[in-house]
């Protein structure tokens, strides 16, 4: 539109040309120069008017006026740098917080996953009705996988292992610890990934006992194999066996597993295939709807033993399987957290707007004189309003620009806080959608904080405004107090939410661990290695490496366990052998340990005995159970000497140990806290058979545990050397102390606490600034009044009280409102609180105390100025 615009100069030139042509014509008719010129002008009429008509006909005018207003607005903002900086920083923080959180929402919930047609990719959910109602993502067992693969023709199905596991890759003389994923044939086809080199796994390679093949990630191919273009068909030593490399994934290819390399799953019905250990993923074939696919899947799975057994044992309960798009299921766990953070960020923006509304209100009222003068000089109310709105918009835009910077930095910080692969997406970009959101937010804030002042200026009365100087009426002060009360109320909610999460984290972190965590260092290595499927070789490795570690000077004890406290354990099913519940199956955590495990970790022995070296492969199979399991088993009677049936063998309970804290990620019980004490049985590592060893080591990497009396120099290097004495080709993947393990389990809680605490602090800061500004402004406005009062005998203290009341009163009202609001709103947090209730008195008391303290500070600081007021001066000033 603007491009078509004609310049006024061009128009003037045209008129000049017209006059010249007319003069020439008249001269041809015989007139002299002077007469011709006069006549031409006469016939043309008023040149100036023509130019004005032209000017006003264009959109030039409004454009010029707009620029005028913008320039004037910028001048006004420059004239009050304190206000401008305060407003821009406030808005910048508010908008920045929103930009950062929204970019996470955008990346997780709005952007598509990096696969072709992600809407046609699904994962399996199951809805159960009846007494054990549930609705959750499900994995499948070996039989169910075969049914899906063979009897659901409208789908291309694939399965993978649940997550990755540590493996050893020997390239040359160097052995590397890597994360490997096991995937079925067509897994990469479902994801729509084409390898850059070679091919995907064939169905033949995916059959049990099929050829050992591997597909490399692009990164591994580059780093370990030097991007060798002739890599295909070469063999590498993986898990102690030669694997043939058949493909390399492309640079940008990501999978839900995010592994360094992939091997064929070769799923079976026995072994791990007996449990639901396979994670299915499916792609809808062309021309099929999800409804058809759901029906087909339910028909196929209904034939599985697992579903039929469930129906037999749970009459009246209904189970229905259905597909959920991959996008939704991948982000399901994070969705509530992300959305509540977005809500918190929204609160912060509201608080920022309330502050700004108060500030602009005062600013507008200070300018009543200017506005009245403009109106008196003939400006229309619309012109005055436009000027004010343009100033608001300018402020908001400046705030938005700062907000994008703040958001960018906050996002970088946030991503640094997250552990690797915490989010199911590889990048969280500040893309055009985020920027559009920020712009929209900016416009919205300008309306939000500008509305109130704009309404008040509509009522400017010309005569009284020009005449009087005192402009802040009681009504305006009350309005500002209401704004402060509102923002304090929101701050209370945020502080309370953060407080409850902090208390939960403290509860979890200070749970009695059931062992002595200090002075312990642990190291993991992968035994997913064909050499250690042999129990004798496994025992030899353990004995030799632990003996060497015990010889390290300063080391008190050394032991090995499949998993450690704070970690999730293997879930196994055992049968109770005697008593009332004989024959009943019980799901329990199971850990294999060496005989020194309880000593090394200092887990208390409650009854019976711990394992000894006598509990060997040929001796009576034994177990040690923990207190929780003992309670479950015998209701107070002595469990020592009784038997369980584990993996088809009768095992003797020889001892009971105290409960230790462990991660609930194994989901033994639904809805338990991230750290719990649950039923656990311990079995001697020396009594593990070949089949079990192969199975558990494909899921877990055992930990070597070393306890030392004090700090030992170079302990980790000495531990690695001790392991190398037993097996030179076995690298430790890393060394951890117990704090690391606890932090890893509580990572989600820690991130939640960090983010919400940061937001609550920001809200508190903004509220404090709001109270401060209100009171400081009162002091300035009432200087004269205070002067008079003091001249009449009022003390400084009385004056401070008089002024400070406004801020404290508003803030207290806000606290009360906030407590009421929290009582209602925070109930949604019930699911993420452990060890405390929503109505936690200490938390609420701390919140109230903090706010009162901050309010008093924000009130007293500006009222200190009152002491400096000299009544004589203020009275003379007028």
């Amino acid at each position: 539109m603007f491009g078509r615009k004609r310049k006024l100069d061009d128009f003037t030139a045209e008129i000049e040309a017209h006059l010249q042509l007319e003069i020439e014509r008249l001269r041809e008719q015989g007139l002299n120069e002077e007469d011709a010129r006069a006549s031409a002008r006469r016939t043309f009429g008023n040149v100036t008017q023509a130019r004005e008509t032209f000017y006003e006909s264009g959109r030039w005018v409004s454009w010029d006026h707009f620029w005028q207003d913008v320039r004037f607005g910028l001048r006004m903002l420059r004239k009050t740098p304190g206000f401008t900086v305060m407003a821009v920083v406030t808005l910048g923080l508010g908008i920045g917080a929103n930009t950062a959180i929204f970019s996470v929402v955008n990346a997780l919930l709005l952007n598509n996953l990096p696969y072709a047609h992600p809407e046609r990719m699904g994962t399996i959910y199951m809805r159960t009705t009846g007494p054990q109602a549930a609705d959750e993502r499900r994995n499948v067992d070996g039989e169910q996988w075969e049914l899906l693969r063979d009897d659901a023709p409208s789908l291309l199905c694939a399965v993978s292992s649940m997550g990755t596991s540590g493996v050893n890759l020997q390239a040359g003389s160097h052995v590397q610890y890597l994360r490997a994923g096991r995937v079925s044939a067509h897994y990469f086809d479902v994801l729509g990934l084409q390898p850059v080199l070679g091919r995907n796994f064939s169905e033949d390679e995916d059959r049990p006992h099929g050829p050992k093949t591997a597909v490399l990630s692009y990164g591994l191919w580059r780093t370990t194999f030097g991007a060798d273009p002739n890599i295909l068909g070469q063999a590498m030593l993986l898990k102690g066996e030669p694997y043939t490399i058949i493909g390399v994934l492309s640079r940008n290819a990501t999978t839900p597993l995010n592994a360094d390399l992939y091997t064929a799953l070769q799923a079976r019905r026995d072994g791990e295939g007996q449990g639901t250990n396979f994670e299915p993923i499916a792609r809808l074939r062309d021309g099929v709807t999800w409804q058809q696919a759901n029906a087909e899947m339910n028909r196929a799975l209904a034939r599985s033993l697992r579903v039929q057994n469930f129906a037999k044992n749970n009459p009246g309960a209904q189970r229905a399987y259905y597909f959920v798009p991959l996008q939704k299921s991948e982000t399901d766990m994070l969705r509530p957290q992300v959305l509540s953070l977005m809500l918190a960020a929204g609160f912060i923006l509201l608080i920022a707007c309330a502050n700004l509304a108060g500030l602009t209100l005062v600013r507008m009222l200070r300018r009543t004189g200017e506005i009245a003068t403009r109106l008196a000089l003939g400006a229309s109310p619309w012109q005055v309003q436009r000027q004010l709105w343009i100033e608001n918009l300018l402020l908001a835009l400046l705030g938005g620009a700062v907000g994008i910077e703040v958001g960018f930095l906050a996002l970088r910080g946030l991503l640094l806080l997250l552990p690797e692969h915490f989010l199911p997406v590889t990048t969280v970009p500040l893309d055009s959608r985020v920027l559009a959101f920020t712009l929209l937010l900016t416009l919205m804030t300008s309306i939000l904080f500008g509305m109130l002042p704009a309404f008040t200026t509509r009522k400017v009365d010309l005569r009284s405004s020009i005449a009087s100087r005192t402009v802040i009426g009681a009504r305006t002060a009350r309005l500002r107090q209401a704004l402060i009360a509102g923002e304090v109320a929101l701050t209370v909610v945020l502080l309370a939410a953060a407080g409850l999460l902090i208390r939960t984290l403290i509860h979890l972190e200070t749970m009695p661990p059931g062992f002595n965590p200090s002075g312990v260092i642990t190291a993991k290595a992968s035994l997913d290695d064909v050499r250690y499927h042999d129990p004798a070789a496994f025992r030899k490795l353990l004995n030799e490496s632990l003996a060497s570690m015990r010889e390290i000077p300063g080391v008190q004890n050394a032991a090995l366990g499949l998993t450690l406290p704070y970690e999730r354990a293997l879930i196994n099913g055992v049968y109770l052998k005697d008593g009332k519940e004989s024959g009943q199956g019980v799901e329990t955590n199971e850990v294999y340990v060496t005989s020194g495990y309880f000593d090394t970790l200092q887990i208390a022995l409650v009854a019976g005995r711990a394992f000894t070296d006598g509990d060997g492969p040929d001796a009576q199979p034994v177990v040690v159970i923990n207190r929780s399991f003992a309670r479950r088993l015998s209701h107070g009677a002595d469990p020592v000497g009784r038997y369980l049936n584990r993996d088809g063998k009768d095992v003797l309970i020889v001892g009971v140990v105290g409960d230790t804290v462990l991660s609930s990620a194994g989901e033994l019980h639904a809805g338990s806290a991230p750290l719990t004490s649950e039923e656990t049985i311990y079995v001697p590592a020396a009594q593990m058979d070949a089949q079990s060893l192969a199975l558990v080591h494909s899921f877990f990497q055992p930990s070597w545990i070393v306890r030392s009396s004090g700090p030992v120099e170079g302990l980790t290097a000495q531990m690695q050397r001790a392991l190398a004495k037993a097996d030179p080709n076995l690298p430790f993947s890393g060394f951890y102390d117990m704090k690391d393990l606890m932090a890893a389990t509580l990572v989600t809680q820690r991130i939640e606490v960090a983010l919400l605490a940061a937001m609550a602090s920001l809200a508190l800061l903004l509220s404090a600034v709001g109270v401060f500004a209100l009171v400081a402004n009162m002091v300035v406005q009432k200087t004269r009044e205070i002067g008079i009062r003091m001249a009449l005998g009022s003390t400084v203290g009385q004056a401070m009280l008089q002024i400070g009341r406004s801020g404290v009163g508003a803030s207290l009202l806000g606290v009360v409102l906030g407590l009421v609001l929290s009582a209602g709103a925070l109930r949604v947090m019930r699911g993420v609180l452990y060890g405390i209730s929503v109505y936690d008195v200490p938390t609420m008391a701390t919140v109230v105390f903090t706010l009162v303290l901050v309010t008093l500070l924000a009130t007293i600081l500006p009222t200190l100025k009152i002491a400096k007021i000299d009544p004589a001066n203020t009275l003379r000033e007028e």
Partner: protein
Amino acid sequence: MSTQEAQERLELLQGTLDLLILRTLIFGPRHGQGVARAIQETSEEELLVEHGALYPALQRLEQRAWISAKWGVSSNNRKARFYSLTAAGRKQLVKETTKWKRLSKAIARILGSEAAEG
């Protein structure tokens, strides 16, 4: 006041002047002064167009894309802005001409009958 009067006069002339300008341009591009002269000469000096009033009209027609303009050189070697009829302008001319003819016929009928009665 004066602007108000000018606006009224303009409105009175608006439709007619636009039509006359479009009609003049049917014979090919002309500059502003040429259009003014042509209207005057074709109407046998009956219509006296104030040249200044012509330009807002030209401006308006250009904005509506009924005519287009570009700088050129006149027959006596002077720079001038030449206006020419666009396709849309040609259509508009036909429409306006028809309308004008019906209007004038109707008015003529009324005025004629009035004359008969009086």
